[in-house]
């Protein structure tokens, strides 16, 4: 049989349809049918031939000598035009925005009993707000390092370097070293970028203890044990900056963070991770704004040591481990902090200084349930306890306790509900409603937020 037959048939079809379009339809259909049957015939033969080739190849490979090292793997076809852009890093952009409606003025929001820390805390502003636009570029540098930059362009037209770090890829024995600016590895949520949070905002305990999220300029060493259970140990140090620490004038290592995580599976349906972390930092003149007994603004400052313990746990469950349909994610973190040193009242004028000591704690638990593909609902409860704060200037009678309204003991709480809809992996709409009782008067601030998140560019891969 001639291989030209299908072509001849095609030509015939073409000619027939050109010459006599109306009458030729039946003929064309017949030819098409013939063509189709020829095609399937060939497909079967080609299939059989391919199978035979595959068989021969397998046998050949198997009998090949052991010294014939790496296979002649056909690499993915090279791009037609090689260009400088072939080495461009993976770039992704996340756009975010919110619409907020709060029953109380966000400007007077505070966490009772906790020093204001100047971070991105609180419910944000009312009405429409452009969130942080996150730009991430990452790539392997060479066979030994990878590097990543995440810059946040804020709605206030500022560019912040969220993370900019290198990381080793070739160290032996389970070690990785990371350096530059990076989100510290303590706890669970600290390393998670804003667009991957399950709620619009951070838990109160992160807002109070770490001004939202702690990134440090420094270095991290992490080690993973060679075991079937995940055992991860990490240590960090840096320049000491970022709340609750402050930048120190001296040389060398400032502050220390140690963390340990363990994790594994529970059957086919669930996985878990739990950890403990210790963050030891020093503050020199850590300023915060307050009002004095007469209600006039003053600038106070803390100098001393700050030691925080964090316990974290997360559990994820999905039927047959398939999170595409339904899944449940439960997580919680507890933080405990001791600060001791000196507190200066009215830095710029009276400048009275005496001892200061505080023991504070806080926690949150949250659950997020994907009840059908693309739809998730979540519930979170936040609680803080400012504990007993010992202010030397008050106990010695120099100043009344009302001179430190921000430090009057308090126990802020918040309950948050959220519902999100994810048209695809790259887009998310979220509705969140919170009953916020963080202020010192304990009255409820009802906060409604509608948020969008869009990701474009490279397909991101998220941490657990």
């Amino acid at each position, binding site marked *: 049989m001639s291989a030209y037959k299908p072509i001849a048939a095609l030509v015939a079809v073409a000619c027939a349809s050109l010459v006599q379009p109306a009458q030729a339809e039946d003929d064309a259909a017949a030819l098409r049918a013939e063509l189709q049957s020829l095609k399937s015939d060939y497909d079967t033969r080609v299939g059989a031939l391919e*199978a035979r080739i595959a068989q021969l190849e*397998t046998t050949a490979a*198997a009998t090949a000598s052991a010294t014939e090292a*790496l296979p002649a793997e056909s690499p993915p076809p090279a791009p037609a035009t090689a260009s400088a852009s072939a080495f461009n890093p993976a770039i992704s952009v996340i756009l975010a925005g919110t619409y907020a409606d709060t029953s109380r003025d966000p400007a007077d929001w505070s966490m009772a009993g906790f020093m204001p820390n100047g971070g991105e805390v609180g419910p944000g502003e009312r009405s429409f707000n452009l969130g942080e636009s996150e730009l991430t570029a990452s790539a392997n540098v060479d066979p030994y390092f990878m590097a990543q930059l995440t810059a946040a362009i804020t709605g206030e037209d500022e560019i912040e370097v969220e993370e900019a770090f290198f990381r080793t890829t070739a160290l032996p024995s389970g070690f990785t070293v990371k350096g530059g600016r990076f989100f510290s590895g303590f706890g669970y949520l600290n390393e998670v970028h804003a667009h991957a949070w399950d709620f619009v905002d951070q838990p109160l305990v992160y807002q109070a203890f770490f001004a939202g999220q702690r990134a440090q300029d420094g270095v991290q060493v992490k080690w993973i044990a*060679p075991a079937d259970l995940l055992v991860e140990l990490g240590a960090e140090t840096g320049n000491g900056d970022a709340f609750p620490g402050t930048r120190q004038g001296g040389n060398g290592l400032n502050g220390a963070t140690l963390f340990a*995580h363990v994790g594994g599976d529970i059957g086919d349906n669930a996985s878990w*991770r739990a950890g403990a972390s210790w963050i030891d930092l020093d503050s020199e003149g850590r300023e915060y704004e307050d009002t004095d007994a007469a209600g006039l603004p003053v600038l106070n400052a803390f100098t001393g040591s700050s030691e925080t313990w964090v316990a974290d746990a997360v559990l994820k469950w999905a039927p047959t*481990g398939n999170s595409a349909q339904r899944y449940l994610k439960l997580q919680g973190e507890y933080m405990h902090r001791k600060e001791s040193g000196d507190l200066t009242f009215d830095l710029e004028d009276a400048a009275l200084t005496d001892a200061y000591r505080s023991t504070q704690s806080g926690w949150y638990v949250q659950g997020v349930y994907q009840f059908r593909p693309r739809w998730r609902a979540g519930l979170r409860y936040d609680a803080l306890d400012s504990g007993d704060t010992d202010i030397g200037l008050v106990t010695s009678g120099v100043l009344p306790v009302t001179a430190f309204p921000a430090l009057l003991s308090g126990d802020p709480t918040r309950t948050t509900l959220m519902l999100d809809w994810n048209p*695809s992996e790259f887009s998310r709409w979220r509705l969140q409603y919170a009953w916020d009782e963080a202020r010192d008067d304990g009255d409820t601030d009802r906060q409604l937020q509608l948020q969008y998140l869009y990701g474009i560019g490279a*397909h991101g891969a998220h941490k657990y």
Partner: protein
Amino acid sequence: MKNLIRGALALLFLSLALPSQAAIRVLATTADWGALTKELGGEHVDVYTATTAMQDVHRVEAKPSLVARARTADLLVANGAELEVGWLPVLLQESGNPKIQRGMPGYFEATSVVTLVEKPEKFDRAMGDIHPYGNPHIQLDPRNVAAVAKALTARLTAIDPAGADYYATRAADFGKRWSEATARWQAKAAPLKDVPVVIMHRDQAYLCRWLGLKEIAAIEPKPGVPPSAGYLGQLVSKLSAAPPKFIMLNAYNDPKAANWLSERVHAPAVVLPFSVGGSKEAKDLFGLFDDTIDKLLGAVK
């Protein structure tokens, strides 16, 4: 502080004592490549499979158990072509294991030795969850499995040269059995040729091509995009004129949409194992194909 350090050290020594050093430790991303590695590596390999047939491999996470397994793996057998793009890069980073990084002998991608179909001409996510390198779901064409087996044997030999003869013998044996089985499957599946079918997702494309099944529609309007009620309605009216013989879905798929359509176009919904472990019969790669073809033939009778 001292107690913490002591505790950490105790944990360290405990964990060092655990893993066995005898076999090559392999982390396979899918059940199929795990099964193939076992066929070829026999008792020289200790294979851990990252996912099961009941899971959508797109949607897996770099969970702690996988990080731990990646840490101690000598060889990573991945599918590649971006099937694992949402989690494998993080897993590799977190593992702290230089042996299985991209470009190292311990990093193997099955799709690297197969010509992929459906390579998109332009990349635009408006077209759904498309894969720039082509359709990555290659395992349901036995000719692809044979090609991967060949390359994987060479890779095992490169990593463990001492076992070269062992791997060669096993590969020859597997190759013989596989080509016989392939011929048997093809002969048996002849009645499936040109049978019109509705598929769920593009992950059934290689199977359809191999057996000559005629895809007349897909339940997903675009890859990775679940069907809307309106789209399903359109499908019903389109398919009523020329109904499919059956609707194909995979063990891990939500059967709701397929069952809904099945009732309306009067064609059975056939649940295929898709991967080793996806059905009782699909115990290994041979079982996977036996069962897939039996289920398909059962639906055309």
